[in-house]
């Protein structure tokens, strides 16, 4: 069970016109694994994530989730398949409160025969929100407060708490602590550790070397649109990873393609 493959991509490629943002990415991760994706700006990390989450349509290649080939037309498809993404921009509606944001686009409702005017099950959503926040040990003083009135860390936690509320099958976080202070970063890292304890698979994009070594099992390095290294945490150290990121070193199995 623990070796079940969660996500697998073969020859995943994305060209923006003449720009080859992502070229032949072969990626694999197993259940419960936490994988970091590192690389310089423009190395193809975010492009890679956008293909998996259906935000963009890939040029070619195959994506499979839990052994099933998938082809997402949009982010909602990916989400329905169980991929929860915490985008860099967070994608929160500032004027809505916590439950509203967690359930945006997939509200609990009743009287569904009313179509677009079906009623919101505020109680149910509030209960599920509290459960989800408890599961991730997130502390938010008042979930009825609007996002506008929250700190950066709280916002980030709300975005991450979505994943816990919806029993995601794969969580992706795009630089979750880039804009946060020390204490808030610790809070977010705690959530990641909770996910690890819950055996929930995670892809973490981060520039923070300490964080990566703290949190994940494996590091995949992107360079100029290609994967150039696939390193187990035990077999590497920060200097080594930097060498791969800057291009001083290239993983043996990637010699042919990455340069």
């Amino acid at each position: 069970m623990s070796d079940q493959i969660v996500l697998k991509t073969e020859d995943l490629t994305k060209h923006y016109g003449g720009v080859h943002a992502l070229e032949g990415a072969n990626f694999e991760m197993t259940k419960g694994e936490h994988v970091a994706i590192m690389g310089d700006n423009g190395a193809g990390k975010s492009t890679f994530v956008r293909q998996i989450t259906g935000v963009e349509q890939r040029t070619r290649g195959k994506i499979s989730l839990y052994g099933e080939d998938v082809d997402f037309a949009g982010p909602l498809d990916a989400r329905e398949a169980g991929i929860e993404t915490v985008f860099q921009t967070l994608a929160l509606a500032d004027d809505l409160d916590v439950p509203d944001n967690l359930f945006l686009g997939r509200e609990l409702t009743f009287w569904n025969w009313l179509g677009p005017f079906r009623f919101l099950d505020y109680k149910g959503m509030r209960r599920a929100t509290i459960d989800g926040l408890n599961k991730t040990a997130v502390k938010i003083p008042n979930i009825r407060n609007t996002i506008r009135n929250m700190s950066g860390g709280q916002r980030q936690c709300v975005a991450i708490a979505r994943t816990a509320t919806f029993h995601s099958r794969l969580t992706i976080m795009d630089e979750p602590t880039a804009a946060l202070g020390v204490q808030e970063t610790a809070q977010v890292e705690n959530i990641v550790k909770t996910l690890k304890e819950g055996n929930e698979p995670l892809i973490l994009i981060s520039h923070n070397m300490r964080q990566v070594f703290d949190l994940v099992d494996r590091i995949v390095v992107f360079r100029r649109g290609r994967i150039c290294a696939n390193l187990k945490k035990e077999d590497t150290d920060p200097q080594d990873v930097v060498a791969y990121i800057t291009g001083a070193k290239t993983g043996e199995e990637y010699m042919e393609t990455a340069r």
Partner: protein
Amino acid sequence: MTDTSHGTGGLTFDKTKRTWPSEMNVLLALVIIVVIFEILGQVLPYMNDQSFLFDTRDRFDSIFNEARLKIIILQVAIIGIIALGVTQVIITAGIDLSSGPLVAATAMIAMSFGQTELVNGFANPKAVFGTWAMDLPVLIPVVIGLLFGAFIGAINGTFIAYFRIPPFIATLGMFLICRGIALWWSGGNPISFPTEQYAAIGAGMMPVIWFLALAVIFHIIMRFTVYGKHTYAIGSNEEAARMSGINVKRHKVMVYMIASMLAAFAGVVLSSKASTAQAGMGEFYELFAIAMAVIGGISLTGGRGSIIGTVLGAMVLGVIRSGFTYIKLDGSYQLMAMGGIIIAAVILDQYRQRNKA
């Protein structure tokens, strides 16, 4: 970050921590304005100690000056119906300038199907169509009017959502088009002599009843349904709404359609109340509707405000208008003062938002 305890500490819904709703400010403003007019009634030398809202003729059965209350709310009811729709549009961070002319166009179109054949035994002198369109059941002109509104709204929404025309420009174009339609429909002639049923739609206090009933319905829709939640979400962060899987484009078209249908219904009520439809009707209605929403605390940047706010905003506008007449202020000064008040409302709201954030 003050709460560092473990467990569910602080997670529960705490009623006392809810922020002071902006509607309360509007209500407060309403009360203050009433008090000001009440004081002016006492101090201005030419007012003879009249009271603005209270009954001064010693009747035991009434406290208020009911006649004035009725006029205040009747004056704003029809524009208020438009404002209910404009509120929804503004919450999506849009704007609808086409509602005033749409009122006129719908009044013309609906009334032309709501005419009576014989006036005092003679053929209707203002007849638009032949006898086939005379004395139809009242539902027909109303449904035609609403369909016309839905059609105009669908065009507005489609241009805004699918062709990415800024709402200001799209509805400004529709503003001219609708005024043109209103003039063209009967060649500039007024349309009069409605059937009894049609005349009943807007008779007496009926506009107020329509306004309040629609306000309650749309309050429930905006507050408790998926439609309302998505409307707020789109105005709050359109990108987030899209990423959450909301069909933003389709939803926007729906919002503009509902807004235009409300404006169209206002046209039906107005023509019924006036017993006539004229191409020049509804002048400045779109601006007063927007003013009601803005005074009621609806943020033009989207995502904030409520139907209750707009209803209170309508009341504020009504009280101001009535109050100016009460202190015998000339019409020209009234317009100037009202313009100033609208600007002041927005400044106050912005100041309040800044302090809160």
